[in-house]
């Protein structure tokens, strides 16, 4: 079946260049490049699906002349799972792009968009398959650079350029840490190959292990957008074209999870007991910070980006619990927590992808992502609204959709802390679970706002009033992901089993899957009888009840007779759209209740010409404190600025001086190394 993988890679190489054969700003370029992307993704789905179903991995290596070892690619079930996520999402995004990119036709270079789009997907595919640290970093860098160019695709906007620069800086800081982690492993094992890292894991000294742990956590954490390393994410993700935002939020940040996973569970071996709590701390901070900022956000795409931070936090909760169980030597629970984390990785990719595509669909017709200017879109674009609603229900972890399945699994992973050998976790893990519940409720509030204010009520601007439903391809792109969300919910035990096998191969633990899953039920692991749960039956029961109520009402009371009339206006006709609740208004209670966190400031300016009752102008401004920006990054930037000004003194601009610098450096080097020889 590897032919499909080669086909995928070749198609991506081909698709990157094909746009330039046509008019780079024309419709043909878009159709050709995105059409090939669709084919490539289909090939990827077949390839990875086959590996996951049969359990037979694939491995190949090319010996080159570089002194860094062979370029080896492998797709075990764990890698295949990531290939599947990338391919599924890029399938939907590429189908969506055919319609979405039409907006850029004639004014932007679509061929170059296609080039970076293909390079981006290809780089992610290679990152999850490569088995050599040197090439891993190479492809990692390719992924970062390609996505940088996608972020600044609309480079005529100042916002996109500055977001791009910030992203470029942050991602390279991250890469530096990842590089350090790999370099330390290389120093210890003497090889760049992952196999060598795995074999020497047991012999790693503890101090070195801890250093590598932190380097990997910071490096991959930057890419994943964990708080406080998240500053670039909510700025950069929304700037890219929406189908790319879907890929960035849906899968690119999961590459960091992949990286962290292989470090924690195969390169580093057993770690000290405090790794788990450290990861859990980072996780709960990201979960909360992400959702709190998302709640206050009024820009649809930024809101989604902040919510990605929250979801990465949820995934890390699972990974953190796995570390806890790992150090307590409870492999069964460790496996359960890892499956939960992995399930959330897939789910988040699908519903976040769906929501970004929905936001893109809104953006392409209204040309605004500001929720305050939307409203009433459900009438003009019913299918987009339905797709967005599916995504919103899923991300709010409501039954019967897939978000609830993984949320439930994470809940149980945390509650398995009751069985932990560490007594402190009897108390802290249910507390974490309750905090996860709080975060879940806040997400629901956030998405009631996002969907309710944008799609329901009356249009708040003429952009919203004149919106039209998006074309077939965009709806199809969303439809693919909505169907996947439903499938991931109804087929949960089946997905769970497959994930169980991938976890076994990637984390070295073996456990009997029958403990967890029997037919259509989830059972708890032994010990704490956590409860049972069957997504399929929940979906069935809710459907039967819905239909039953409709039928019974018909039977007993006949067909409903409905008259329409204006909404209740308190007897004073003339309800205007501006009288509706705004997005800012909707989240106001939280701004007030949690004012110790948000530290909101507001400014009201009133202008009147001498007479207090006749106001000519009003200005209202309300903002919340972005703590990490103001407390960490601003001082840091100032520090760098101050240091740079100090260094400026040696930059005089005289060429003689520079030559003498070089001369002095040369002498010093000669002295240093000459003395050694």
């Amino acid at each position, binding site marked *: 079946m590897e032919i499909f993988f080669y086909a995928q890679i070749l198609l991506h190489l081909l698709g990157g260049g094909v746009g330039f054969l046509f008019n780079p700003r024309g419709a043909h370029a878009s159709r050709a490049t995105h059409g090939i992307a669709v084919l490539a993704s289909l090939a990827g789905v077949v390839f990875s699906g086959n590996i996951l179903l049969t359990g037979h991995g694939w491995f190949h290596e090319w010996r080159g002349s570089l002194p860094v070892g062979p370029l080896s690619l492998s797709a075990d079930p764990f890698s295949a799972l990531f290939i599947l996520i990338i391919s599924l999402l890029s399938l939907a995004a590429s189908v969506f792009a055919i319609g979405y990119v039409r907006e850029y036709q004639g004014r932007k270079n679509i061929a170059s968009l296609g080039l970076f789009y293909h390079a981006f997907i290809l780089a992610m595919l290679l990152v999850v398959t490569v088995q050599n640290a040197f090439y891993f970093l190479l492809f990692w860098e390719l992924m970062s650079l390609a996505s940088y160019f996608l972020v600044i695709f609309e480079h005529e906007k100042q916002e996109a350029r500055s977001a791009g620069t910030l992203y470029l800086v942050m991602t390279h800081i991250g890469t530096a840490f990842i590089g350090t982690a790999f370099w330390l492993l290389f120093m210890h094992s003497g090889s760049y190959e992952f196999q060598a890292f795995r074999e020497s894991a047991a012999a790693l000294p503890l101090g070195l292990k801890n250093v590598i742990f932190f380097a990997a956590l910071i490096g991959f954490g930057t890419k994943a957008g964990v708080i406080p390393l998240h500053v670039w994410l909510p700025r950069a993700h929304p700037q890219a074209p929406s189908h790319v935002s879907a890929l960035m939020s849906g899968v690119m940040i999961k590459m960091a999870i992949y990286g962290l996973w292989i470090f924690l569970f195969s390169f580093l071996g057993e770690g000290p007991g405090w790794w788990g709590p450290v990861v859990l701390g980072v996780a709960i901070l990201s979960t909360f910070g992400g959702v709190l900022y998302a709640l206050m956000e009024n820009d649809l795409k930024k809101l989604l980006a902040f919510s990605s931070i929250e979801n990465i936090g949820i995934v890390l909760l699972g990974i953190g619990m796995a570390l806890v169980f790992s150090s307590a030597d409870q492999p069964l629970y460790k496996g359960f927590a890892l499956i939960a984390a992995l399930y959330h990785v897939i789910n988040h990719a699908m519903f976040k992808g769906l929501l970004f595509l929905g936001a893109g669909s809104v953006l392409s017709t209204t040309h605004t992502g500001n929720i305050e200017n939307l409203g009433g879109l459900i009438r003009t674009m019913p299918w987009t609204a339905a797709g967005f609603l599916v995504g919103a229900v899923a991300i*709010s972890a409501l039954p019967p959709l897939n978000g609830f399945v993984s949320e439930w699994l994470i809940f149980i992973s945390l509650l398995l802390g009751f069985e932990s050998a560490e007594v402190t976790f009897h108390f802290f893990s249910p507390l974490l679970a309750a*905090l996860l519940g709080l975060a879940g409720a806040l997400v629901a*509030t956030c998405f009631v706002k996002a969907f309710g204010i944008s799609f329901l009520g009356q249009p708040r601007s003429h952009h919203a009033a004149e919106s039209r439903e998006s074309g077939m391809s965009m709806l199809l792109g969303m439809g693919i992901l909505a169907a996947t969300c439903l499938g991931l919910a109804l087929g949960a035990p089946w997905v769970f089993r497959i994930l169980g096998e991938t976890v076994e191969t990637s984390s070295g633990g073996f456990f009997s899957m029958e403990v967890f899953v029997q037919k259509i039920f989830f059972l708890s692991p032994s010990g704490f009888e*956590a*409860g*049972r749960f069957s997504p399929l*039956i929940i979906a069935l029961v809710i459907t039967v009840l819905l239909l039953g109520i409709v039928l019974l009402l018909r039977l007993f009371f006949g067909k*409903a007779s409905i008259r329409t*009339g204006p909404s209740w206006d308190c007897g004073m006709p003339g309800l205007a759209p501006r009288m509706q609740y705004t997005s800012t208004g909707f989240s106001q209670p939280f701004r007030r209740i949690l004012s110790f966190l948000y530290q909101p400031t507001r400014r009201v300016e009133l202008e009147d010409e001498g007479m207090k009752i006749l106001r000519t102008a009003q200005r209202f401004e309300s903002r919340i404190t972005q703590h990490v920006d103001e407390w960490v990054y601003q001082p840091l930037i100032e520090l760098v600025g101050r240091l740079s000004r100090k260094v400026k003194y040696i930059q005089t601009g005289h060429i003689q001086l520079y030559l003498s610098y070089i001369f002095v450096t040369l002498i010093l080097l000669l002295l240093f190394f000459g003395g050694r020889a």
Partner: protein
Amino acid sequence: MPAIILSLFQVIFLMVLAPAVSWFIKRMKAASQNRRGPTLVQVYSDLGKLFRKDMVISETASWIFHLMPFVLFASTVAAALIVPVLGNHALLGFMGDAILFVYLFALGRFFLALAALDAGTTFGGMGSSREMTLSSLAEPAMLLAFFSLGFRSHTLSLGGMVSYFAGAEPFQVLFFTSLAFGALLIVTIAESGRIPVDNPATHLELTMIHEAMILEYSGRYLALIEWGHQIKQLVFLTLLANLFLPWGIAGSWSFPALGLALILYLAKVFFLAFVIGWIEIHLAKLRLFRVPDFLSVAFVLAILSLLGQMIVGRGV
């Protein structure tokens, strides 16, 4: 087979009983204000009348508005299906556990809040925003209370918890669950929209929460919402009764056991309804921004309950 029929009967019994419990609280309040209050027949005939009435629906409303009453009612009944009523087994207890119980109500609330925004009025937005805010704070307290009970009873399934506490010694039950009971009682008050969190009898825009959201509803949709709300209240009371006063619950499906269980169940539920009514009579509604403090009491009680059980140890 008889077990299935009896469990099904449990749920229908719950649905039929729900308006009577609301009537009981209304009647209590009326008595305290020197009014007569509605008769028992009145609450049922009100529902019946609403079901038969024509509906007037806002021109702005979309299909979300039409979908919501059904989702709200279905999710509430689904939650009722996993709660043990007379015996310690629920009809669909295998469908899910306490977490599902919490999230089924979250599903109904999600659509309720959306439908409130659908008509495009200020009232709807106001109710929607307030409801989501307060329930976000009630939900973690409810989850934590369940977790602390789960720690003791080694299970998260509601039926399992009830049978554990029914089998435990009375002193133990009181000792280990009283704090969690306090937490869940506060949550029940919040979830059923009672004073001091919300006032079910007001239509004053400054104070209403639940009523603001359903202002645009009429006819059979309103009937579904009202009835669903009454069922939700009874489901919470049932859960409180069976978790914290588990004695007398039917261990087997024999008629004498069931008969006794039925009488005790009614006594317990109406006692709890009396408690809720008593609180409603004696307290004033809290200002909106004081409610989070009230709800955080529930959260703290749940934490204390968990801590207490930690200190005593797990036991068997």
